[in-house]
């Protein structure tokens, strides 16, 4: 016998199910009067520093059909590369930027949309700079455990080229699944759950 480690196991994940909106975006689900507004609907205000951008996209299943019952959350640094989090020890992030957004995919079109700012660069563990990126978390009916991925910016070719996370992708042809092309101030990021264009998901 040896001493027990006395560690607990993480609670097992279960799918968010088809009615995730009731819990996480009740106003979107037409359950009014319980919360004044849905959390995560607004990330910026008039005073937020940084370049205003829009991120839109869809989540597509193995047949290419967009999910109309998914929920996306994003998490990103501010314009200076700082996170609005107590675990951020490098300085204080922009108090006018939450860094966190939540959006259900549209029940008819399957599209999600975030009004945010372009994040600054955040250091990797060894001090090298990561390219600007946004962390995505996707849940839905049929997804048994939330999927983590990252969106990188199509107009940041140089930074993407030296990003230590992108450098870890063995099959280089898949890197493009993480890079959102820019049109005007809008980036389009479609997430493919399966198939030839399957998005890279991370075990973080």
């Amino acid at each position, binding site marked *: 016998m040896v001493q027990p480690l*006395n560690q607990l196991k993480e609670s*097992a994940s279960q*799918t968010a199910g088809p009615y995730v909106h009731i819990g996480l975006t009740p106003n979107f689900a037409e359950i009014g009067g*319980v919360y004044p507004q849905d959390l995560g609907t607004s990330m910026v205000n008039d005073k937020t520093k940084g370049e205003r951008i829009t991120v839109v996209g869809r989540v597509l299943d193995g047949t290419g059909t967009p999910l109309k019952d998914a929920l996306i959350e994003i998490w990103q640094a501010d314009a200076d590369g700082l996170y609005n*989090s*107590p675990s951020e020890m490098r300085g204080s992030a922009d108090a006018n930027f939450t860094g966190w957004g939540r959006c259900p995919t549209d029940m008819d079109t399957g599209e999600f949309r975030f009004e945010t700012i372009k994040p600054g660069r955040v250091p990797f563990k060894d001090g090298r700079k990561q390219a600007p990126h946004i962390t995505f978390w996707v849940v839905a009916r*049929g997804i048994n455990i939330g999927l983590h991925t990252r969106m990188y910016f199509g107009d940041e070719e140089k930074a993407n080229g030296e990003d230590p996370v992108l450098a870890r992708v063995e099959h280089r042809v898949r890197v493009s699944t993480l890079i959102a092309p820019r049109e005007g101030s809008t980036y389009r990021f479609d997430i493919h759950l399966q198939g030839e264009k399957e998005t890279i*998901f*991370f*075990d973080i």
Partner: protein
Amino acid sequence: MSDSQISNRKPETGAFFQRDREWHPQAYTPWYKTSVLRSPQKALLSLDNTLSEITGPVFGHNILGELDNDLITNFAKPGEMAIGPRIIVYGRVLDERGKGVPGALLEFWQANAGGRYRHRKEGYVAPLDPNFGGCGRTITDEEGNYSFRTIQPGPYPWPNGVNDWRPAHIHFSLFGHGFAQRLITQMYFEGDSLIWKCPIVKTINDRAAIEGLTAALDMNATIPMDSRAYKFDMVLRGRRSTLFENRMEGN
């Protein structure tokens, strides 16, 4: 969004313990049919946490309304209440090291006592309860404790097999202190025989993991002549210690 109420603790900055992907459900579980076309088929790319995963949003108690943790009244007309068996759900949010997680935002949602959800895409014949919305939220205290009041949800049939029923359950969404801890799960009720027949429960391979999602009836926490109580603890990923880690200067 940063919460002054938890800032008297030194924030932790370590990476999170690796997730045990065999303990959690696999993505592809064909007996839960919807997972077939929604499951990634390529290997996940393992990424030791960077700042992007170690940090995460934290929510202050100032977002909470007075009735947010009372599903019996938070959607009801003044003076009225939701119909169904009255229960209190309470417990702690811990991490894998056994430490309480303070300031964790919990959001929960459920069907009404008849097993019916208040949702545009829901078509079950059981009626809506005009006084029940089905959502609530709370934030854990300094020791990781939480509680809320609701009615016990009913089981309901769902289109998968021709006669599949969900056991009574409450959905939970949890935020810890880092985005890598983000978790959605479900709470089941002790003694419900539908648990072991449910294709969604069976996406989990490990019996102990399922038992870990099953709340215990706690007669000592009931309110006599009013509500029964169920105890439900939840565990989020633990953090590695940073004590002996080599860190780049200024990092």
